[in-house]
């Protein structure tokens, strides 16, 4: 990478680092921009919000100029002009204009993101918005004669002839500073020094205005200078004085160009008052101090704390096996250690926890886009923005939420006409609410649309072979059919929900997070999807079992119950499969040791303990194990990151004894087994 020629003193690395900072800041500015505009849309009348919005765009433009991101600069400049007029109260805000500004914010976001990765946004996409903004700006400009509040005061000019003092190629300057010049830390000495850099000169001091010492006032100006300069470039000379032009009298004599009156620009008489408003209402509450921390450091700390937890487990285990004379004391200390470790773990996880607000905010833009594409009118209501969840989960929330909202608008909410026809408001509402419940985070996505069309769902399910024609599923069961693989009620593959992005994809991504998803619906009134996720992907509650000499962990969320197997209840099916009847329903019985490929000395019939597990699709199985070792919280180690994806295995963990235990992926195990089944398993028979 070569150095930027405009910043030759900065290394390519330095520029790259500042560029990274710039784009980080852009994200913050874009977020503040959207928040501010949304607040204005809600009717907030705080002027500080407008200032914040202006500054956000101004800042982005400033940084873009450094890196010559032309498309971004041009758009930001236009956007800034519009906002500048709003700020100057030359452009009044109304619903339509705010909508335009919101669209401009979206476009700006796209331009920033494209610039970040060196791509371009299709100009055709941005062009109509540019027109809209240009129109806004033009309307105001027409009212302005372009001169602002400038007033010209002509200064008398003495046209000394060519016989004036000094050589014909040089200049003569008369310079008399006003008191204000000194008050702004300008210094004639420095100005004279600058002049000298241009070339040789002769300086004569004019002390005529200097009073007697007793009458001398420290902040007045009494001195003037006459400078005979050898250089004839009047522009260069004027540049030297550019900072002080309004605070002095400057005559330049001997210019070869016709002299122009030096206009002394009187201060703008009445600029609209914009006193810095000390406002209490800041867009985002900022309680207490914050510091910026490198995410890598936090991740590292969480890893170390997780290992501390494991290590402490090992210690407790080893100590339990030791013969000790003072066991009670030791146990007490170990208990304290355990408590402390868990507290540290909680505190550290809290550092990385973020409010879901960031994800929810992205959804408001999504709603605007889908509105535009479908022609429907939808408002987004969010609740529980401040609910916090670990970073590992936040990042993976975006996709399922996006799909669910698209789905809600595309399929749930009716068109304006349809809604009015049934007595609803033309504008539909999509509500996303987050809350903590039972040690998990629960997110509800609800709409006030038409609800699930059960007739159609049932029909399509039969058509796709998901259920048999004579099956008689309950309303709830029908609702859950939409999660079946390949299920889509759209005949046409729409841009939004097409390409296989159906609820089955949503369910798999939620499952991959260790979560569950379900739906309830009232025909004509709307549907509510409920998403339940663990608070972090770093730790998990599991049931530890021993299988074929290995330890395995079954996620507690998948566990229904554990029980003793009665040989009498086991029925064979085909050459290698077995079925257990549990409360009247048949459930496949799987020998976990053989499924996992563990060599074992115990035969299947020797095992009597089983876990009844259920995956999120409602598929159930009974897993035969050697022994149930107990419930335990485990630290999740990604197998994918360390090795690769292994079917049937969700992740790994390290137990107290230092050995690696695999965490079961129940859906994966059921899938593995299904391949050996001749007929499809009983999937929809959720009890």
């Amino acid at each position, binding site marked *: 990478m070569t150095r930027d020629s*405009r*910043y*030759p*003193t*900065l290394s390519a690395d*330095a520029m790259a*680092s*500042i560029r990274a*900072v*710039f784009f*980080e*800041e852009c994200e913050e500015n874009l977020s503040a921009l959207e928040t501010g505009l949304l607040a204005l849309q809600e009717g907030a009348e705080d002027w500080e919000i407008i*200032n*914040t919005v*202006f*500054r956000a765009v*101004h*800042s982005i*433009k*400033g*940084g873009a*100029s*450094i890196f010559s991101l032309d498309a971004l600069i041009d758009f930001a*400049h236009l956007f*800034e*002009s519009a906002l500048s007029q709003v700020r100057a109260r030359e452009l009044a805000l109304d619903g339509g204009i705010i909508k335009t500004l919101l669209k401009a914010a979206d476009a700006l976001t796209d331009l920033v993101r494209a610039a970040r990765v060196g791509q371009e946004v299709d100009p055709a996409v941005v062009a109509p918005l540019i027109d809209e903004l240009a129109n806004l700006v033009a309307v105001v400009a027409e009212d302005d004669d372009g001169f*602002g509040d400038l007033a010209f005061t002509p200064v008398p000019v003495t046209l000394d002839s060519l016989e004036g003092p000094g050589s014909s190629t040089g200049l003569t300057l008369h310079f008399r500073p006003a008191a204000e010049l*000194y*008050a*702004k*830390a*300008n*210094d004639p000495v*420095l*100005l004279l020094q*600058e002049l000298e850099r241009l070339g040789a000169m002769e300086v004569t001091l004019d002390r005529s205005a200097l009073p007697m010492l007793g009458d001398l006032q420290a*902040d007045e100006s009494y001195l003037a200078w006459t400078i005979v300069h050898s250089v004839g470039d009047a522009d260069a000379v004027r540049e*030297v004085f*550019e*900072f002080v032009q*309004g*605070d002095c009298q400057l005559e330049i004599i001997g210019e070869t160009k016709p002299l122009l009156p030096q206009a002394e*620009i009187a*201060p*703008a008489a009445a*600029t609209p008052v914009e*006193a*810095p408003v*000390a406002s209490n209402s800041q867009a985002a509450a900022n309680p207490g101090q914050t510091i910026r921390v490198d995410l890598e450091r936090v991740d590292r700390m969480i890893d170390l704390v997780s290992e501390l937890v494991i290590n402490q487990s090992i210690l407790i285990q080893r100590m339990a096996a030791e013969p000790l004379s003072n066991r009670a004391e030791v146990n007490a200390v170990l208990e304290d250690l355990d408590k402390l470790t868990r507290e540290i773990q909680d505190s550290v996880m809290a550092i990385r926890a973020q409010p879901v607000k960031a994800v929810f905010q992205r959804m408001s833009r999504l709603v605007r886009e889908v509105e535009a594409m479908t022609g429907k009118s939808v408002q987004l209501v969010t609740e529980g923005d401040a609910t916090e969840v670990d970073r590992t989960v936040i990042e993976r929330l975006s996709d399922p939420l996006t799909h669910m909202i698209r789905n809600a608008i595309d399929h749930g909410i009716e068109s304006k006409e349809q809604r009015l026809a049934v007595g609803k408001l033309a504008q539909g509402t999509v509500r996303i609410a987050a809350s903590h419940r039972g040690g998990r985070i629960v997110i509800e996505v609800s709409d006030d649309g038409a609800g699930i069309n059960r007739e159609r769902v049932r029909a399509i399910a039969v058509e796709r072979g998901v259920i048999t024609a004579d099956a008689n599923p309950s309303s709830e069961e029908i609702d859950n059919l939409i999660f079946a693989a390949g299920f889509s009620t759209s005949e046409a593959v729409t841009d939004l929900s097409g390409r296989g992005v159906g609820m089955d994809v949503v369910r798999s991504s939620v499952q991959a997070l260790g979560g569950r998803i379900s739906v309830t619906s009232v025909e004509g009134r709307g549907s509510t999807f409920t998403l339940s996720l663990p608070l972090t992907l770093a730790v998990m509650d599991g049931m530890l079992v021993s299988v074929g000499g290995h330890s395995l962990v079954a996620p507690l969320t998948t566990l229904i119950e554990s029980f003793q197997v009665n040989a009498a209840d086991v029925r064979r099916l085909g050459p290698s499969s077995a079925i257990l009847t549990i409360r009247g329903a048949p459930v496949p019985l799987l020998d976990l040791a053989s499924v996992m490929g563990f060599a074992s000395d115990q035969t299947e019939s020797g095992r009597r303990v089983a876990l009844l597990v259920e995956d999120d699709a409602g598929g159930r199985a009974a897993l035969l194990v050697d022994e149930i070792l107990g419930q335990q919280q485990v630290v999740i180690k990604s197998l994918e990151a360390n090795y690769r994806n292994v079917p049937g295995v969700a992740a790994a963990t390290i137990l107290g004894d230092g050995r690696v235990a695999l965490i079961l992926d129940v859906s994966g195990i059921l899938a593995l087994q299904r391949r050996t089944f001749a007929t499809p398993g009983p999937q929809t028979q959720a009890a």
Partner: protein
Amino acid sequence: MSTPKTILTVDDSRTMRDMLLMTLVDAGYDVVQAEDGEDGLVKLGDRRPDAIITDINMPKLDGFGFIEAVRADPANRSLPILVLTTESEMDRKERARMAGATGWIVKPFNPTKLLDALRRVGA
């Protein structure tokens, strides 16, 4: 070896602060940073700089307010203050001058011009 001169930079944009920091440090200055006018006044109280470079658009206390506050103290009479302005707001430059700014630098700044401007105001 003379002690390096200190410049106080006041700007709410981290990007700009970093750019100024690197350019100034490279040229041998010490730099103190502030993120808005209020912070600028605090930092000014901590350690007197040889010059100030400030942005105009900032939250809490903007450039104008900051400059006025600085000039309000007669002890700061000869403390040079340069404002960062963009091409499109040269009228703000005038207002800054009225508030007491010594001179200005146009954004995106040219490092040579930045250092020139500092020299011209004696820093």
